[in-house]
């Protein structure tokens, strides 16, 4: 068990001007499940590999258990890693795969077998110990990869998108298993994913990265409720938050034909920044269909039926016609509106977000 830290860590690949990871500063507590999330190219896998010792640390430090390990090879860092494509040794059986690290440490055969057996019990792999990876399904291989990491009883688990090669249903099941396993073992875990649903459901805290720069690190609920900039606001939550340019008025911001009221603090912050318009963010779940004639009007372009909910994609009447993304509203109304119909929607004013139109920073 150990606390893990990135101290101003950077990685610049040869021939590139822009760092893949830029001055990452992140403290991960002992036993914490930290998720690194971001789009492709955000530097999350590179940051994980820097922790593992598979990428150089060009600036700054990596600390495990308080010690600077930036120059140490992977085997001296007491870490275990689960790779995206599992990276099992094809010529070894499951038992041999899981026991390889112990064999290198010259652990006695009996102790090795006992540890492998314990990990196999934990992961429901006892029946497969003599099989080779090619005789296993994707989910089984993933469990063997986890077993290989668990057997080592390391200070830190590193997981690089371990679920992305599984089918959707198995992914949901396995992510619950991984979270439960980590809670049981209590090992500090750094988990990389591009899937924000995984991030939100599994992490104690989530670090959002974009283009190598840390945007925000916080508990999932706070990321959802108070995103620190427009990028995080649009990345966390599915479907994504509606972000629209809105002109400031005395009491709020104008969206379409209506004025959405904003808190005093937000308006003051906007005035202090000399803004005449802001980027207004409203989540689909903060909007509902209403029957009264007031409020916003939406022309329906597409309805996505998900069983429990439906999402209505449309164009706001009076909206900026150059807006690329459709306006999304979550509703439960049965029957759902027809395509081309115009519906009235009401925004919950306490659940709006305001961001600076140029920098994207939250206005408060």
């Amino acid at each position, binding site marked *: 068990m150990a606390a893990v830290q990135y101290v101003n860590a950077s990685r610049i690949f040869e021939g590139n001007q822009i760092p893949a990871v830029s001055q990452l500063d992140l403290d991960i507590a002992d036993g914490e499940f930290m998720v690194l999330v971001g789009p492709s190219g955000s530097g999350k896998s590179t940051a994980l590999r820097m922790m*593992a*010792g*598979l990428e150089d640390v060009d600036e700054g430090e990596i600390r495990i258990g308080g010690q600077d390990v930036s120059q140490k*090879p*992977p*085997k001296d860092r007491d*870490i*275990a*890693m689960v*790779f*995206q*494509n599992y*990276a*099992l*040794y*094809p*010529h070894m059986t499951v038992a041999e795969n899981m026991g*390889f*690290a112990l064999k*290198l*440490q010259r652990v006695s055969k009996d102790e090795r077998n006992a540890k492998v057996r314990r990990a196999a019990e934990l992961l429901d792999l006892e029946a497969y110990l003599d099989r080779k990876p090619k005789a296993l399904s994707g989910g089984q291989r993933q469990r063997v990869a986890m077993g*290989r990491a668990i057997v*080592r009883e390391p200070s830190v688990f590193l997981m690089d998108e371990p679920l992305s090669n599984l089918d959707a249903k198995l992914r949901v099941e396995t992510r619950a298993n991984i979270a439960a396993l980590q809670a049981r073992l209590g090992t500090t875990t750094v988990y990389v994913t591009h899937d924000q649903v995984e991030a939100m459901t599994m992490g104690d805290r989530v670090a959002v990265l974009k283009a190598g720069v840390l945007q925000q690190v916080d508990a999932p609920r706070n990321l959802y409720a108070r995103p620190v900039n427009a990028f995080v606001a649009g990345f966390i939550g599915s479907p994504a938050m509606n972000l629209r340019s809105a002109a400031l008025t005395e009491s709020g911001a104008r969206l379409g034909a209506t004025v959405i009221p904003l808190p005093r603090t937000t308006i003051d912050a906007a005035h202090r920044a000399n803004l005449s318009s802001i980027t207004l963010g409203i989540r689909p779940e903060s909007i509902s269909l209403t029957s009264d004639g007031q409020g916003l009007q939406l022309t329906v372009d597409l309805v996505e039926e998900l069983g429990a909910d439906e999402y209505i994609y449309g164009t706001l009447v009076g909206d900026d016609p150059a807006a690329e993304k459709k306006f999304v509203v979550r509703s439960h109304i049965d029957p759902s509106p027809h395509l081309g119909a115009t519906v009235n929607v009401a925004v919950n004013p306490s659940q709006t977000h305001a961001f600076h139109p140029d920098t994207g920073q939250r206005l408060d």
Partner: protein
Amino acid sequence: MTTHSNFSRLPRYAGRSLLWLALLLAMVPIVFLVITSLKPEGVTRTIPPTWLFAPTIENYSSVLSTGAGSSVTFGRLLFNSAAVSIGAVILTIAVAVPAAYALTLKEFRRSKGVSSWILSTYMFPPIVAVIPLFIIAGNIGAIDTYPVLIIPYAAFNLPIAIWILRSSLESIPIEVQEAALVDGANRPQIVWHILTPLLMPAVATAGIISLILSWNEFLLALSLTRAAAKTSPVGVQEFTGLYGTQWGNLTAASCMIAAPIVVCVLVLRRRVVSGLAFGAVK
């Protein structure tokens, strides 16, 4: 079952017939060789060739026991061939595996240039090396020893062996090596525990190609050996002497040279084909 017109079957039958014809034509010298080796000495020279005779193995026994009249029996020559070829294969593989691994390391900046240079040495004509090797071997007293053949054979076999092994190594995902690094292996342990078992098919391919090349090699063996390390391809041409050619003994010796390689190739024929095609595709 649908019927096809006879016309569409014709190209296939014609192609197959041509292949059979080519095969039979190629087999004629070999069949003749084997038959001649079983003829008693007097019958070997008749024109037209005698097809009906009492087969005998006296040629084989005489070749093995006395050889071509030199001090060395042919059995000894076959042994030398085996020793030199197997030695060359072992040396080739022992050097080629680490070399191929080094060429795949991303820290090795000039690896592309070095690989191309290594492959270019495959075009080096062995005859150019004969005189320098003879002089060097003479100076260190290595003429007519096993190493004087094993080392040059390995040197000439290395380019293709490295090329085959490197290509096979590149098809192993890098994450498997990274997983081994995280598990605590150092580089030699990665090569031994992880890469070598996965490279076995490529090792077999490179090995059989090296074996064939070394076993059949004539020029260096002729120049650098006398009696003690003489190999069988050199020995077989001694059956043509002052008093004419002993065809029975010659053909028996040739069959004995060819037989081990034919057996190896039959057992490992898939590997041989992939090795031979290697230069064409990559």
